[in-house]
């Protein structure tokens, strides 16, 4: 069942790429919906896993498991892809071309979230890079090449370090296969030496820091989002592809608890700094895509802060934030795409759109409030728990990261005000409001942002058992 779920979008991508132009959208739409339904079924059915020897000689196993955080992330990935596919297919000219790549990327993402074998994880980690590069290459802006190269180099180099670390890990731990469970048992029997753990942890961290992204390795992201197709479809997938946080949670922390403890302070400082640094820069951006990129970076800094603080509440908060950040940042990208399709430019200085397009501005405002963690919406639950947890560990760093909510408030409202409030300059044409389809798309994500902000039970029931298990591993109750 899991493998069907995993490879369904890939199959869809294949068929869509072969299908004739008019047939592309219904087919893609069908596959994306089927994947989401399957995801929900698996969620209801509860955790399942499969583990088969794939290449026994190498010790490579085909082991997947769907439970806890992976389920949550997989469901959200399926949900957002469905939104992106519908929006791309229906509203974006040249959209059908993207559909195959979007579905391929979805399959890669599901692979990342479900794989429990280090090499399999690496395979999917690299595989997802291809469609996103193609999306950027075929649909990007003018100097997308520079962004493409930077994105490609950063990711591959980072993941090469991880590959080396994976191989070294298996040999160091003496586990029979690359399966995570096997390695965990091996390290449980006799833990790796401190220095070995430290180096391997850094190896993993190199790849995840790029994909997180966190301060020193973030340069690729603003260009990546800016150069992507203005409709925002590629960016939705880009946000989903920020899997660094998940990687740390699933692989780096359980495998190297001692190293995580050693580096705790340094990494937390880095995360807190990058949270504030990016929020502050976002204020100065003059392009919606870059504002959202830096906002995303600031959120990812918070996720990192939560993870590195090794405090159960903070880790729960960071996973919650990571999962739902995809929803509101992704929808904001779509909203910006809709704005672009109406106004033709991505710069926030439009003025007075609230008059002509109240629905668009209303929904965007709720999404922005979700993004800057207004309580009662989904953003707050994550940020609050992260800040609360990291405060228990180090009050000063939590304070620095806390400052980012003030910066977030100012840059979000500053951008919002310039485009939706204030008087509409005379020369500008009348802007049509959202159509039924676009309205429902944003509407659904607004409902999710609102609902899970209040009723967090389903998501927490998924996250907390995993965090509890992780807590025992790290020795923090």
């Amino acid at each position, binding site marked *: 069942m899991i493998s069907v779920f995993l490879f369904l979008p890939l199959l869809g991508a294949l068929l869509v790429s072969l299908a004739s132009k008019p047939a592309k959208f219904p087919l893609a739409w069908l596959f994306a919906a089927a994947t989401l339904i399957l995801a929900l079924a698996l969620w209801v059915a509860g955790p399942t896993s499969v583990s088969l020897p794939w290449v026994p000689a190498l010790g490579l196993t085909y082991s997947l498991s769907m439970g806890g955080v992976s389920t949550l992330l997989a469901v959200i990935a399926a949900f957002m892809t469905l939104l992106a596919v519908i929006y791309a297919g229906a509203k974006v000219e040249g959209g059908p071309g993207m559909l195959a790549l979007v579905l391929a990327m979805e399959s890669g993402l599901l692979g990342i979230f479900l794989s429990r074998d280090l090499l399999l994880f690496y395979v999917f980690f690299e595989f997802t890079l291809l469609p996103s590069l193609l999306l950027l290459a075929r649909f990007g802006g003018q100097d997308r090449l520079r962004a493409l190269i930077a994105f490609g180099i950063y990711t591959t180099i980072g993941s090469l370090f991880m590959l080396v670390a994976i191989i070294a890990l298996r040999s160091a731990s003496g586990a029979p296969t690359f399966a995570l469970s096997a390695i965990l048992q091996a390290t449980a029997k006799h833990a790796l030496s401190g220095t070995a753990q430290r180096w391997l942890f850094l190896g993993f961290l190199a790849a995840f820091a790029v994909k997180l992204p966190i301060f020193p390795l973030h340069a690729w992201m603003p260009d990546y989002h800016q150069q992507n197709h203005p409709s925002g479809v590629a960016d939705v997938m880009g946000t989903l592809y920020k899997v660094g946080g998940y990687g740390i949670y699933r692989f780096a922390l359980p495998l190297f608890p001692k190293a995580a403890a050693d580096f705790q302070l340094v990494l937390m400082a880095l995360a807190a700094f990058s949270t504030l640094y990016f929020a502050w*820069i976002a204020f*100065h951006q003059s392009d919606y895509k870059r504002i959202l990129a830096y906002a995303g970076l600031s959120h990812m800094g918070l996720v990192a802060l939560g993870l590195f603080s090794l405090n159960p509440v903070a880790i729960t908060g960071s996973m919650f934030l990571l999962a739902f950040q995809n929803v509101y940042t992704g929808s904001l990208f779509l909203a910006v795409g809709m704005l672009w399709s109406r106004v033709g430019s991505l710069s926030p200085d439009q003025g007075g759109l609230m*008059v002509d397009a109240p629905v668009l501005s209303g929904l965007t405002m709720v999404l922005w409030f979700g993004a800057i963690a207004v309580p009662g919406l989904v953003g707050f*639950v994550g940020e609050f*728990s992260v800040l*609360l947890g990291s*405060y228990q560990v180090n009050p000063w760093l939590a304070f620095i990261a806390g400052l980012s909510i003030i910066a977030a408030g100012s840059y979000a409202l500053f951008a919002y005000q310039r485009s939706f409030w204030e008087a509409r300059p005379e020369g500008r044409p009348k802007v049509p409001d959202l159509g039924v389809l676009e309205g429902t798309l944003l509407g659904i994500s607004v409902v999710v942002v609102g609902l899970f902000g209040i009723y*967090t*039970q389903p998501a927490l029931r998924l996250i907390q058992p995993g965090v509890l298990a992780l807590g025992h591993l790290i020795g923090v109750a």
Partner: protein
Amino acid sequence: MLPVYLLPLLPFLGFLVLILFGRRFPGPLAGALASALVGLAFVVALIDFFSVRSVPMHELLWSWLPGIGGKGHNLEIGFYLDRLSSLMTLVVTGVGFLIHVFSIGYMEHDPRFPRFFAFLNFFVALMLILVLADSYPLMFVGWEGVGVASYLLIGFWFEGKINANAARKAFVMNRIGDLGFLLGIFLIFRQYGTTVLPSLAKMPIKTDSALELICLFLLVGAIGKSAQLPLTTWLADAMAGPTPVSALIHAATMVTAGVYLVARSHFFFSQAPVASSWVAWVGGLTALYGALSAMNQYDIKKILAYSTISQLGYMFMAVGVGAYWAGMYHLVTHAFFKALLFLAAGSVIHALQGEQDTRKMGGLAKTMPLTGAVGLIAVLAISGIPPFSGFFSKEAILGASFAYSPWLWAVGTFTALLTAFYMLRWYLLVFSGTYRGQAHPHESGPVMAVPLVALAILAALGGVIGPQLLGSNWLENYLKPVLGLPSLHNPATTELSLIAIAVLLALLGFLWAYLRYRSGRLTDLRGFGPISAKALYLDDLYAGSVASPSKAISGALERTDRVFGGGMSATGEVLTEPGRWTNLWQSGFVRVYALSMLLGTLLLVLYLAVRMLGGSL
């Protein structure tokens, strides 16, 4: 005994209905629905008020935040109704209802009429969540929620750039305060392991530096929300919103949230003397600051805004010195007369088609007798003239502050003098003398008049609930089980002399104002005038020291980030340089390939030979 969650639920439903199906409510129907819902909430509050006398109600709904609900399990969303919060709900829903009715008339020909009432209901719902929250994080939801509501309402007429900026400024400044509140919550969780109020109240509070820090953090939160020094400049700009908004949010309910927070966490503050003195002195200084800046304002609403800041300062003084019940008492009476003042100003502005500058008003008492009369009652109440409500509550505060520290009392009483001055100046500029404007004012309709009268009655008789003179006053005993008794009481004789001094000063203030503005003459206060008009330049100070540098820093960070990004890609280029060398090698000449083959074999064999040599040497 109606369930408590009904209170926030009713207005929230109103918000949802009006925001989604607003257009389907023609004419004043939307306003009627909104007011009806708030009215219903008021009825529920009333019923619960009478039934909660003995045991507080604590309802838990469902689990919400991970891990901080005490002893490791998740925090439940719950509503806690005790005597203090039921009092607040009465104020919020009661005054809210009157203001809703008033704004039906005030906003009747506004194109986005239903949306205004949606936002108003949204505000009332969140204010009730704030008041009824059983844990600090839930209170924080209400806390920021009302911040959002005030953002939406201040920026309701968003076409104007000033309104939009004012709304954003209010939100950002509130957020600064909210950060303090957040840090306070984190420290509370760190010290006591839970953030649920009822269990915290029962816990033994260890008085140590952490407790002081907690109280200071909560103070920062309260300062942000109640526009005390130093985060006070946003309230004056918030007047950009429609007048009912100013009345509801920036006079009666939201800004008092800070006082409510301190009163609610009385079990912390009573054990933290240093922090309480901070609260008291912040209150005192803000009262002074408010009064000084209100003296020479010309915008009808700005005067009232600064007066609100000043009155809030009084409340902070009260809860600072430990007389929490006095603080709540003034909060209640202030809600009445300040809402009345704003609504009176509203009906004046409505009559003059949006004119807000007092220099173009005057002599309206003749053409708008009801508003004039009601305005006079409010001015008398706020200045602390007996038998009006303001007198009693202000006396309670001044009495308690005198027992705490005479200096504080001195500041309070001097501010009372200034209050009397600028309030009478406000009345004289607007209602007496000859009309200086062009519009032709007329008395407002019944829809606006009824709330005015109701509030006037409350302002006049509001004092009855806790007069100091009649021995045991009702309010103090009512709140005793929740807030405990203030530690300090001064003997009856000093009490009487304090009252006499206060009333004397109030009359002195009236005299001074009457002399200057009797015939509607517009004379600036020499020397001190411009300073007061610019609100002691605090706003420009912030603009210079906070706003522009943060923009500059943000720009600088942007450039460093680009350079840093560039640096990373430069290292990329450096890597590709050797690449260009190697492809010289692939020149395509067959013989070059052959040569490299030969080189390869040669190296191999050479290696063997060298090894052989090495071996045999």
